[in-house]
Each structure stands twice: as C-alpha cells, then as structure tokens.
C-alpha cells in the first residue's frame, strides 16, 4: 500500500542567494565599503545618474567603482568608464535580473579594501530584481519624471524593498507635467517614510544631497 507523508521544508526558496549575499554584505561592511544596488525600469536614467555620482565622488577623492548589469552590450560600462573610475560590465545574456553569485564573480580580482563605494546598476526591470539580495547595504529605486507618477503603485513589490528613492530627470518635469507631490505620495504609500531625492543628472540638482546621504550611510557601517 502507499500512503502520503508530508515533508515539512519551510525554507526560503532563494536561501542560497540570501546566504551568499549576507556573507558578501558582512565582508563589504567590514571593509568599510558601502554597496548600493540601483533598481529601476529601463530608461529611467540609472546610468546617467550613476555617471554623475561616480564623477562627483571621484572629484572628492572618494575611491569608488561600479558593476553594471545588462542583457547584452557593454555600452553602459563604456559610458560609466568616462567618469574615470573602474567599471565592469555583467552581461546576463537574457536573464532579467542580477543574482549575488554574478556580482561576486565579477568582483574577483578587485581590491575592494581600497574602495569606499561600490555601485551595482541592476538590469532595468521593475519586477524581477525584487527578491535577489546582492549583498548591498542600500537599495536605491529610481523613478524618472517621464514614466508617470503611478509607477510605485504599479510595481509595489520592488519599491517596497528599497531603502531610498530618487526621482530622476527633474529637468524635464515641467514638459512632462510631472506632479512630484503625487509621485512622493505614491512612493510613501508603498514604502512609508522612505527618503526621496529629487535629482537631475543633467543639471546636477539633488546630487549633493544624495552624496551626503551616501556619506552618512557609509559612516554608519564604518566601525571606529
């Protein structure tokens, strides 16, 4: 005869990724390295935002680097490298998100101890990166004024996992009739109390405030 037996598992499906990411975060923070995972839809301006961030950090003498994920091409890595900081491209070859082991593999051989900030530009996608911890200390969700104010309501899962948000392309806000109060209210509905930076990579608006936040967060992970 046969009879059913229930085997209780009660384990997170992404346990292996979570454990790897936790170990990476511990190591990054031990080195005093602040790691930022940047998530948004395609075309939000992650690369332009990051390029400005890297240039400004470099100008202040802060050692920083970036890894950038895309399905194909190294266009973003080449754009970012113009800022003069080390950049590596991760091609996912069709995969819609980055996973911790891809980041770990692309960091091999880098002197992380010499860095203060590392940015991971995720694949442009507002759904799939949600559940993959990359070992970051800060998850930044970006939303451009051209996308519409209701993106956070349409993609609450991803916005809910973010620590901080940036509105991008504010220089186009008027042309797009962008309602920033509504956008902020929508972000707050999905992630109550989350800090929001209003930025423009073109004019530089809001970037000093963003860099100030990064410095604060980095100070928070640096012991002694």
């Amino acid at each position, binding site marked *: 005869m046969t009879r*059913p*037996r229930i085997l209780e*598992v009660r384990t997170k*499906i992404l*346990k292996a990724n979570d454990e790897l990411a936790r170990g990476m975060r511990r190591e990054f923070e031990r080195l005093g390295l602040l790691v930022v995972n940047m998530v948004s839809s395609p075309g939000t301006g992650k690369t332009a935002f990051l390029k400005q961030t890297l240039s400004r950090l470099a100008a202040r003498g802060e050692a920083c680097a970036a890894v950038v994920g895309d399905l194909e091409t190294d266009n973003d890595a080449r754009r970012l490298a113009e800022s003069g900081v080390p950049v590596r491209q991760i091609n996912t070859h069709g995969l819609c998100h980055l996973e911790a082991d891809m980041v770990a593999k692309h960091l091999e051989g880098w002197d992380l101890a010499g860095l203060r900030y590392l940015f991971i530009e995720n694949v442009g996608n507002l759904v*799939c990166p949600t559940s993959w911890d990359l070992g970051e200390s800060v998850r930044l969700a970006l939303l451009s004024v051209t996308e519409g104010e209701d993106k956070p309501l349409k993609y609450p899962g991803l916005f809910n996992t973010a620590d901080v948000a940036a509105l991008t392309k504010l220089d186009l806000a008027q042309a797009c009739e962008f309602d920033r109060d509504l956008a902020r209210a929508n972000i707050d*509905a999905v992630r109550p109390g989350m800090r929001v930076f209003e930025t423009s990579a073109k004019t530089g608006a809001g970037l000093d405030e963003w860099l100030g936040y990064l410095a604060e967060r980095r100070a928070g992970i640096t012991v002694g």
Partner: protein
Amino acid sequence: MHELSIAIRVIELADQHLRAAGGGRVAAVRLRVGRLASAAPAALRSALVLAAQGTAFEAAAVEIAEVPVRIWCPACERERDLPGLVPLACPVCGTRSGDLRAGDELELESLELVTEGEAEA
C-alpha cells in the same frame, strides 16, 4: 520572467530535502508566495512544469498559497492584513506603516511524498 529562476531554485531545494529524507515519489510541492514578492503564481506554476522536467518532481502537483500583506499598525498596536497591496496603511485606522510582517515571502513550505508504506500495525 524571473519565475523560471525561482522555479529552478525550488526544484534544487526540494531535491536536497527529498534526498535527505531518503527519496520517494513526490505527489505535491507546496509553496507560500507573498503578494508583495513580485512573483506571479500563474507564471511560477508554468515555470515549475518546465523546471521539473526529468526530475522526481515531474508528476507532482504544485500548490501555491498566496500570502496577504500584513503590517504592524503602531496606532492599533496589532498586526493587520491588507485587502490589497497598497497603500501600506492600517485598513482600520488608516495609519501608514512600513513595518511589514508578512507578504514578501517566497518559501518552499512542504513536499507531499508517497512512500511505499509499511504494513499497518
């Protein structure tokens, strides 16, 4: 379509547990998926059919329990289930709260095995 990546992990994880339990025929795979987990149950179900091909889970039924979003309401001083996803606010008093207590999980809950049973005592 990250559901396929998730489905592959489900099969890997389920296989580890099945082996540890000494194997057996799998009748059902049970998952818990939070409504804020950005994984669509229908897509996950289809992805699991693909990921299970050629494995011990090929013939298994897939049962997905959707977990509602639950927050801690600091005003009511109790946990509240939300009727939808947003806003993250108490459905009773309206207080906003980002203190998520459930709804973001992606869990392998259990496996139902069919083992050749010993004779009933």
